[in-house]
């Protein structure tokens, strides 16, 4: 889901930059209101985890690859605003240092993976887990569904960003200037592979860590909700 340079037209990537810069400022202010000193290392661990889990490319045999983002588990532990910060730091370093995701696409990539996944995932987790006990199986089920839906919504949005390019940026001869595939190709392609494979990976990552924390240190599952 790391959109490279050259796939998005300026009329797409400029607005995403215009959104994400003030957004991250707001996220920083939100985090500053709830982040306690002793939880700062968790933010660092969360950002590093998101980065490294994205390196685990899962193949679709003979096809494409994809990966989890780890955004929903960070959101479950530290809240969606902190997850936005953690994932965005990972995405910016991935673009600058490793060329994974374009420089021009940083705004869009941070929006898709750093805003959509943690917010959709976290609120689904919160809705489903409700007032259940911290150790309830309902918690990890909620996390799994949050992870699955969060990454899929982001995949569809990325598919739309790819798919509108041939509509909004054409050369005089009608050829696309940027990402060449239309909505009818890009959206189903992004949706199906995430529905079938990568969504399940994000669900597993989220659920397994919740189960681990329920057994080893359940206080970590009360940080965000309990901080207010």
């Amino acid at each position: 889901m790391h959109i490279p340079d050259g796939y998005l037209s300026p009329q797409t990537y400029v607005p995403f930059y215009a959104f994400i810069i003030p957004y991250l400022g707001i996220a920083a202010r939100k985090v500053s209101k709830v982040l306690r000193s002793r939880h700062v290392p968790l933010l660092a661990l969360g950002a590093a985890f998101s980065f490294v889990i994205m390196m685990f490319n899962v193949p679709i045999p003979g096809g494409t690859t994809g990966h989890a983002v780890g955004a929903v588990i960070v959101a479950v532990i530290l809240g969606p605003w902190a997850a936005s910060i953690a994932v965005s730091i990972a995405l910016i370093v991935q673009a600058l240092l490793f060329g994974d995701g374009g420089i021009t696409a940083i705004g869009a990539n941070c929006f898709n993976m750093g805003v959509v996944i943690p917010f959709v995932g976290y609120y689904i987790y919160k809705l489903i887990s409700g007032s259940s006990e911290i150790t309830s199986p309902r918690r990890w089920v909620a996390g799994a569904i949050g992870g699955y839906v969060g990454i899929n919504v982001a995949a569809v949005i990325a598919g739309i960003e790819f798919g509108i390019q041939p509509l909004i940026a054409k050369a005089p001869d009608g050829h696309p200037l940027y990402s060449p595939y239309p909505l009818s190709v890009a959206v189903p392609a992004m949706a199906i592979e995430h529905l079938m494979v990568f969504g399940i990976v994000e669900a597993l990552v989220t659920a397994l860590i919740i189960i681990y924390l329920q057994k080893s240190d359940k206080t970590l599952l009360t940080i965000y909700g309990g901080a207010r």
Partner: protein
Amino acid sequence: MSNGNSTMKKMLLGLVVLAILSPVGVILPDMFKAGSAWGEWDTNEIQKMVGFVPQGMKNLADLWQAPMPDYSFKGWEEKGLGMQSLAYVISAAVGMGIIGGIALLFGKIVKQKE
């Protein structure tokens, strides 16, 4: 006081294990002949798939020369899976160090006092 510190130490250890295991992320796609992620093709692949490289894409594609492109080193592309795996572990360690460091710094600046 919770046992939070020991959990964080275990999590850090977990990250070290993930860095060591990260070559799975290049070996599995190689085994199953899976290519790029959807929408992350380079211009050579686009040329093969679409028959041409869109002009705007051509202009922007090489905008940035990353120091460790694709979690490897320049010139290591032909060195085989073993060296690629080594580069991957190094990339995981370097990336986690930098990203964790930035997040730690950010956290120290904005945190609430206990």
